[in-house]
């Protein structure tokens, strides 16, 4: 395997990204070598249609080794008529959704993949149609039939559990609560969930293709609307990718504003999530308290940026307004929030009924979390010390003191406590940010996007790591924009966490992960 790595065709370094080109036959071995020997984490894997440049499709897999601020991007070219590549799923289970997605979107076949059912598209989407290919176009009648959803063009076989006493419970896509759509199929034995198969991608909006039709600077608006409650992190990661590609360096001021707003976003999400878990455990007073604190922070967002979801602030090369000017206001709200939040936590930890529901529920083992490449709060609650802010310091995170909070329990309670610790951490980080002053203009000088260049952008959203990879074509327009939201990595772990729990605990488990459907469905 090491040989495969050494046979690489060429190695390019750009910032902290190392692009390693390997031959197709070496692709699998090179990935496995990095995964097993370097204990690298698979961050994302994707394909790109680069036929207009050199007549090939490319497969990229992005790894990062813990403790090292460096991304190893192994890629290979698929030329000619042979549109298959060796699957790495058997050895690196985290790749299983990525490969199915590549199969759907590009029609490239991962050879040796154990489960090549459709992932993104549902039954009525025409067979042999692959939207991310550059020469793809859709017939109006095909799209209409896809929407009508009546003609089955490629059936999807749900995994069935057979045996005495097994009941199948289908739920969704329209749920009872005010949440996003997704279909869940429980196979239960009495009250206990034996197997859960989620069928997602109901909110698939063709976002990656849509990025290609917009320019790089218009893409910011779209990035903000990929996942509602992570608007700022998504747009920050997208802007970072474009800025790195164009070689734009941010001013200290812009970096400080982005860091501040990222932490405020984390704060309102974490407190809202803790409150929301009470809705799952039936503790109405905790839910109401959490909602009031969240509302306070949402109104703060609106006063800082004009948007309750921190939209319209990020722009390529910097930010549009200076949140530091409203220091007094932020501090007043932060003080009030801290006080309320502490009383909320006291209430939750002192409530026997709540604690009884959250402890030992929805356990996700470290082993499975590691194999599936779980990220964010869910990973840290299962004992994986992984935080992009620490692993790949960006913005002002290398100057701020904080530690990733981990616990090994992996249950709903662990996820609640990781959120609680990170909330306190975020509050102190915001306070620290205000101790210094930051110089420079809000936006850096504009630069043209260089042709045929690419770069990664990343940050830690409240749910986990988000990655954007952008590549420009010969005219400096978007050739490919790939994003990987944290929910995309964490959804496959939910069925493992709920296995053996009772059906009524599913909403609680689900809320403890708090995954975005829209971000996952692309």
């Amino acid at each position, binding site marked *: 395997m090491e040989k495969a790595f050494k046979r690489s065709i060429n190695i390019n370094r750009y910032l902290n990204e190392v692009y390693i080109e390997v031959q197709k036959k070496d692709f699998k071995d090179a990935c496995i070598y990095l995964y097993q020997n370097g204990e690298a984490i698979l961050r994302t894997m994707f394909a790109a249609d680069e036929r207009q440049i050199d007549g090939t499709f490319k497969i990229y897999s992005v790894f990062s080794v813990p403790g090292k601020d460096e991304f190893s991007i192994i890629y290979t070219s698929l030329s000619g008529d042979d549109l298959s590549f060796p699957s790495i799923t058997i050895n690196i289970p985290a790749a299983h959704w990525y490969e199915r997605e590549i199969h759907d979107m590009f029609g490239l076949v991962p050879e040796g993949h154990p489960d090549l059912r459709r992932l993104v598209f*549902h039954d009525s989407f025409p067979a042999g149609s692959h939207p991310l290919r550059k020469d793809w176009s859709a017939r109006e009648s095909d799209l209409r039939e896809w929407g009508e*959803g009546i003609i089955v063009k490629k059936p999807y076989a749900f995994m069935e559990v057979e045996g005495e006493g097994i009941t199948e419970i289908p739920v969704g896509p329209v749920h009872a609560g*005010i949440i996003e*759509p997704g279909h869940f199929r429980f196979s239960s034995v009495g009250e206990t969930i034996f197997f859960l198969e989620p069928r997602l991608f*109901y909110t698939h909006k063709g976002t990656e293709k849509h990025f290609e039709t917009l320019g790089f600077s218009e893409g910011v608006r779209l990035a903000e*609307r990929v*996942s*509602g409650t992570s608007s700022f992190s998504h747009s920050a990661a997208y802007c970072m990718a474009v800025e790195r590609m164009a070689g734009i360096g941010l001013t200290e001021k812009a970096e400080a504003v982005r860091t501040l707003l990222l932490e405020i976003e984390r704060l309102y999400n974490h407190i809202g999530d803790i409150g929301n878990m009470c809705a799952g455990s039936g503790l109405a007073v905790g839910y*109401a308290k959490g909602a009031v604190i969240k509302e306070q922070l*949402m109104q703060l967002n609106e006063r800082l940026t004009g948007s309750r979801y921190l939209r319209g602030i990020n722009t390529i090369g910097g930010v549009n307004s200076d949140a530091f000017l409203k220091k007094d206001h932020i501090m007043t709200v932060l003080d009030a929030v801290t006080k309320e939040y502490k009383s909320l936590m006291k209430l939750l930890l002192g409530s026997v009924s709540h604690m009884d529901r959250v402890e030992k529920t929805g356990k996700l083992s470290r082993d499975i979390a590691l194999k599936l490449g779980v990220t964010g709060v869910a990973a840290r609650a299962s004992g994986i010390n992984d935080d992009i802010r620490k692993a790949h310091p960006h913005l002002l995170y290398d100057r701020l003191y904080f530690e990733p909070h981990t616990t090994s329990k992996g249950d709903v309670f662990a996820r609640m406590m990781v959120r609680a610790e990170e909330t306190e951490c975020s509050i102190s980080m915001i306070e620290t940010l205000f101790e210094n002053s930051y110089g420079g203009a809000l936006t850096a000088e504009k630069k043209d996007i260089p042709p045929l260049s690419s770069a990664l952008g990343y940050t830690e959203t409240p749910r986990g790591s988000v990655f954007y990879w952008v590549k420009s074509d010969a005219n400096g327009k978007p050739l490919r924009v790939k994003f990987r939201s944290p929910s995309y990595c964490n959804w496959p772990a939910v069925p493992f966490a709920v296995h053996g729990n009772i059906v009524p605990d599913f909403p609680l488990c689900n809320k403890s992960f708090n995954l975005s459907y829209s971000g996952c469905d692309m």
Partner: protein
Amino acid sequence: MIKEILKNLTRKKNVIPYPEGFGFSSEEAARIITLQDGIDGIFKRSLRIRQVDAGSCNACEWECTALTNPVYDIQRFGIDFVASPRHADLLLVTGPVSRQMELALKKTYIATPEPRLVVACGDCSIDGGVYKCSYAVANGVANVIPVDCYISGCPPSPLRIIEGLLALLKKLTA
């Protein structure tokens, strides 16, 4: 929790004050209160809403959830969100309607008993918003089911949603 209940019972004021930091102008408050008349008149203090996410980014859903929090407390008007379209008077649809949600949205619409109202909530639901012309969206709710009222905003704040519902009720009484 018992402490919390006791505290509220023994508190002299009957009304729990808003936590500090919330600002509503008296004009806004007055506008919202007029909503009550419409609900009392037509719906006899009971307007039941079923929220349907047809591919939104989830921001609109959180604003709908915020409507039920103690700050906006939409239940005081007699409005509530229900779990099934069969219990609903009004469908509040968000999102540009992704192709894979079209069928589910139509089925939800059919499951809602007549007379029914449909409100398209958020910029995406009006014409597709930022997702307009993507291959996987139907560019707005009106392309799939008939719509009675549009509420703009990305996302519309809870106050705007209340105002939008008010405008719809006014139209019905006029």
